[in-house]
């Protein structure tokens, strides 16, 4: 529990984080705190975050795209969604997710390189990912044709709940998982069909 001397700092941090709809960097928080508080009142941010996240609350602080942000706890997501009239956006198609995964792990990468890995043409998917600002153009590759290079954006980190790219699970982990799970193949007789709503009634056939 926080001591009284921390309280003003804690309250200021809470007010700052609350008032922003986007992650704020530690530097900005501490700079503003030091402008409004005595030096000895400004504590390390980690102390505030630890205190905040262990209280009984509907909220928690997470690190996203390099900054800190207050979000609602996942267990209240259904209730919060009831409040919002907006329905859940369409989830990502498998094509988008595959392409994003390739861009995320192999960036900077060119369109032909992505297509080579996926084995299919991907211009439509790239366009939709660019429109959603999940990927962007990083420049050009030096070499024949100087093709454009793509990479992920801070928005990608935000949407997938990542602090930084290094927080992505390593590909070696997947390799290990795949090696361990040779026997699980039978359980997945066909690709998952959650992208296409019309298959929901057919899923049951699958399970019979």
């Amino acid at each position: 529990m926080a001591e009284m001397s921390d309280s003003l700092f804690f309250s200021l941090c809470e007010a700052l984080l609350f008032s922003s709809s986007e992650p704020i960097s530690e530097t900005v928080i501490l700079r503003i705190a030091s402008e409004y508080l005595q030096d000895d009142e400004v504590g390390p941010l980690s102390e505030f975050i630890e205190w905040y996240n262990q209280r009984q609350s509907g909220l928690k602080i997470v690190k996203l795209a390099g900054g800190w942000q207050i979000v609602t706890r996942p267990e209240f997501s259904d209730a919060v969604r009831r409040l919002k009239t907006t329905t859940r956006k369409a989830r990502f198609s498998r094509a988008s997710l595959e392409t994003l995964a390739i861009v995320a792990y192999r960036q900077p990468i060119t369109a032909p390189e992505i297509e080579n890995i996926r084995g299919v043409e991907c211009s439509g998917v790239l366009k939709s990912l660019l429109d959603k600002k999940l990927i962007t153009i990083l420049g050009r590759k030096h070499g024949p044709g100087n093709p454009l290079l793509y990479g992920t954006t801070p928005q990608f980190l935000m949407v997938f709940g990542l602090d930084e790219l290094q927080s992505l699970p390593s590909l070696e982990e997947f390799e290990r998982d795949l090696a361990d799970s040779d026997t699980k193949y039978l359980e997945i007789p066909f690709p998952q069909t959650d992208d296409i709503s019309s298959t929901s009634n057919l899923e049951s056939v699958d399970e019979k």
Partner: protein
Amino acid sequence: MNRIDDYIRIKLELFEGPLDLLLHLIRSQQIDISAISIARITDQYLETIELMKELDLDVAGDFLVMAATLILIKSRMLLPPSENTADNLEEEDPREELIRRLKQYELFKEASLKLEDMEQIRHRMYSRPSTPDEIQGGKDWIIDVSLVDLLTALKDIIIRRKDVIAHIVRPSPVSVREKMTRILELIRENGTLLFSEVFDDASSRQDVIATFLAILELVRTQLIRARQRCLMSDIRLVLCKPRQE
């Protein structure tokens, strides 16, 4: 069309591409990717493609390219090892490249499933809605704009003003026309200009290229002439006499 056909159709439509289909065929055989039998997988793959055609599914070119690749590998597997490599070199497994690609694809497919999970967890956490006062200018700008926005803006102008302009989309910061003007000025001032001097104020490779193209263009349009006293001597640029003279 009956329910089963519908079912198969939807399943087939769901394959992301030839690699995805192959991976599925391999998984349903419960074998390791490295241990695939090309003959068997090729037959199954071709059958599936046939089925897709029967169901009037649009079989994309990518699927057909893979079919050709499989048949090629299959035929190479049937060939006896060639004589000149048999002695000292290990004959390369014709399946090698395909196996490598399948494994790579499988890895990213796995990664994409993980991304999906991550997105679902993240989506269950709501942040504060943004308010209008967060937008607009401040002292330290965080500029929320990307190259894609820039290109899209460019595209919009072109569409809107297509009749008026069609010349704004070259990313070359060095204008050949400017170089042409500059060279003409220099020649007019000095009466003549050495080819080597022209490049003196070229600051980059782009600049050199633009300057060179400017000279070619000036020569082509007969605004200047290039003269050389003898082989290997410096080229001298002079103005052409106006045609009406």
